[in-house]
């Protein structure tokens, strides 16, 4: 029973890794709050976008998370 977190760009450096497996929690806010506070703060920065299982979500979507879901944290892109 776990969630796969993916950290892109500079968030990888903050997280210390590009991927992290965490226990399932029902919502994204709870997941973020369970992490190291400095990482949590970086993930909550206003321009960080979220994708759940490859679909971009708005804060208001508040998807219910389940085992095996992948949550990607996407800082502003730096372009191709």
């Amino acid at each position, binding site marked *: 029973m776990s969630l796969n977190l993916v950290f892109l*760009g500079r968030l990888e450096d903050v997280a210390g890794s590009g991927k992290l497996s965490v226990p399932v929690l029902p919502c994204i806010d709870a997941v973020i709050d369970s992490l190291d506070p400095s990482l949590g703060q970086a993930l909550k920065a206003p321009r960080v976008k979220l*994708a759940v299982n*490859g679909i971009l979500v708005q804060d208001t979507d508040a998807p219910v998370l389940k085992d095996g879901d992948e949550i990607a944290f996407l800082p*502003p892109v730096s372009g*191709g």
Partner: protein
Amino acid sequence: MRRFSRTATRSPSCRRYRAAEAVGCERHSDVRLLTSPFAPAEEIASFARAKPESGGVVSFIGQVREGDGVEALELQHYEPLTLPAMEKLAVSVHRRWDLDGVLIVHRSGVMVPGDPIVLVAAAARHRRDAFAAADFAMDHLKSESWFWKREKRGGEWHWIEPREQDFDDIARWG
């Protein structure tokens, strides 16, 4: 460097994608996301050869610049978003101009100065369409693509923030 694509459930990377098959309304798009080096000129040659009805082929090659103290460049992509967005871009380029074909090839991973990063080519009966399409595609790839970039200088990697110029470029298209 890990590739997050391993965890994705969508299309495998590095494969040739024909928008026609997936989108059903556009023809002759060739969009690829590559994690290993490619030869842009060979791509241009086969693209132009495959469009004998086109009078003009405009192409843009972006390569890692030498001489700014950059030892290496890395582009990171997120598989579930990056390739689908490139495919969407190809479709919108096709809809906006009268083209015989669009080619978009983009690298991900670690590159060194001189390595090709991106190739965009547009084939059209009239060169004005081909120029505008390639220009538009590059502006949008640069400002909207799901790529995260870092540079290695003096042995240290630094993430690159978005450039304001990129947003100015894209604003030209209204």
